[in-house]
């Protein structure tokens, strides 16, 4: 129990203009070091949940504690944001300055850190995301994927325990998408940073430790990716998709080919079919 780094208990949130709760009586535990994917159709409350984790919003009901702290005052919010960084969807709208390394320093400057220490952390963070050679470049000259890497570096420099990615790959092309996702996985594995990965891309969610599917502000399904996606009809009814191979498995099973129904990728399908063939 003690390892929960984010713990939401019966959390609700309603926007001032809202007619109903954007997040409604939601209970969720995220363990330290986990890679959790959050899925759900547009408007299901995933972005609101992300902002609750970062104390950009405070619950209107229930409570959420992040890294052992429940934000009540403005100072608490500030502490929560230090431990829980956030990377947003639009790479253009989260870079503050006109020079890459200065943007990377922005959070640390806000924290009032010593200039020499900022310099060290910024250099390390840019190296960690592979953007050192662009330290003095203007963000306007970078590709979408590179801008997102700069955004990650800006968060990373603050040495957070958790990073929330709110659809950070939605506006990238496939190369940029793979790139940023791989970076998040690397930070999770090598640095032990807890990752909350909000996405519309099933192939990304399929690689998470755990998948949380939201619907109408609540959690609809919460399980390992394999278990979540193998409930194909339910997942499709929630406005999501399942991996292509899982759809193929269902089609084959309907025609009497007995492949397992929880096949996630091409490799698994190939292995299963080879086994079936050798049995015949």
């Amino acid at each position, binding site marked *: 129990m003690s390892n929960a780094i984010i713990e939401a208990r019966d959390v609700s949130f309603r926007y001032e203009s809202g007619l109903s709760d954007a997040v409604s009586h939601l209970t969720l535990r995220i363990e330290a070091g986990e890679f959790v994917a959050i899925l*759900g*159709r*547009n*408007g299901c409350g995933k972005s609101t949940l992300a902002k609750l984790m970062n104390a950009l919003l405070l619950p209107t009901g229930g409570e959420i504690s992040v890294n052992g702290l429940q934000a009540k005052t403005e100072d608490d919010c500030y502490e929560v944001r230090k431990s829980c960084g956030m990377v947003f969807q639009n790479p253009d709208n989260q870079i503050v300055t006109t020079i890459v390394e200065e943007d990377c320093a922005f959070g640390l400057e806000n924290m009032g850190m010593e200039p020499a220490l900022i310099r060290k952390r910024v250099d390390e963070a840019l190296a960690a995301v592979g953007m050192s050679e662009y330290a003095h470049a203007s963000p306007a000259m970078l*590709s*979408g994927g590179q801008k997102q890497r700069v955004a990650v570096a800006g968060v990373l420099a603050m040495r957070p325990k958790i990073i929330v990615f709110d659809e950070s790959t*939605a*506006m990238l*092309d*496939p*190369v*940029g998408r793979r790139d940023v996702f791989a970076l998040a996985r690397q930070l999770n594995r090598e640095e032990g940073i807890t990752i909350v990965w909000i996405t*519309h891309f*099933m192939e990304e969610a399929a690689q998470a430790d755990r998948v949380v599917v939201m619907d109408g502000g609540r959690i609809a399904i919460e399980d390992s990716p394999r278990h979540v996606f193998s409930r194909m009809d339910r997942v499709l009814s929630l*406005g*999501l*998709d399942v*991996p*292509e*191979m899982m*759809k*193929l498995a269902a*089609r*084959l099973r309907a*025609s*009497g*080919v*007995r492949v397992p129904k929880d096949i996630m*990728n*091409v*490799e698994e*399908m*190939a292995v299963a*079919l*080879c086994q*079936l*063939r050798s*049995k*015949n």
Partner: protein
Amino acid sequence: MSIEIKKLSHVYMPGTPFEARALNEVSLNVADGAFVGIIGHTGSGKSTLISYFNGLERARTGVVFVNGMDLGDKETDLIAIRRTVGLVFQYPEYQLFEETVAKDIAFGPTNLGLDAEEVERRVVHAMNQVGLDASRAKKSPFDLSGGQKRRVAIAGVLAMEPQILVLDEPAAGLDPAGRQEMLELIEDIHRSGVTIVMVSHSMDDVGKYCDRLFVLSHGDIAYQGTPAEVFAHGDALHAIGLDVPECAKLAARLRQEGFDIPEGLYRMEDVAGAIIDNIGKGGKA
């Protein structure tokens, strides 16, 4: 032949240190009634290419013909071009500006110089085509959801009743269900007789809907042909950062394992059929 491009080159900021070649002697044809896919990365030149399709850029080197009109010729009537080719850019919802949905959709047809009655007819028809309820006509487009806004923007182009519709990443940023609906909407428009050119990153999407593909890479057409022909270059595509549909990958993998899967299969139903032929109603034994 509805679009015919020959040896089209485009250089950005020629003669400056920023000079960059966006298109390199590109030639392509789009047949009447086709559903064509253009695939390539950011910077591959695809956005530049589609701006030539309706005269936003005028060809300086190379020629662009649309239904026999020479788009490089300054004498060619722009209104006639815009009537023929509709262009839907990426995230088209960001171009909405009018007070009401109906007024926004009417912008294009009004610019074509049509009379009020005809404009009204087209607005109603276009809303119907994209599945927008008539009750939304008097609403502000800014109050709609993201997916609905995009439909309004597409309706605004459809209301110009183009014979050729060009869409740049029409499904970008939508959730899976929204993507699916958007692609089906485009397929419906295609079925109603409109030639479609769709720019996409997703091989799965173009594989499902297109009958001809062009793969752009660094301003060159790297591969072209039917989806089956293009997907046959799986490894080469991978090298330029593109993928083939999962089912095409599986087919290739199974062939390696000695399965008898014909070349050129990429649709799920076809690959499933071939697997069943190999295994029989297997597993029963």
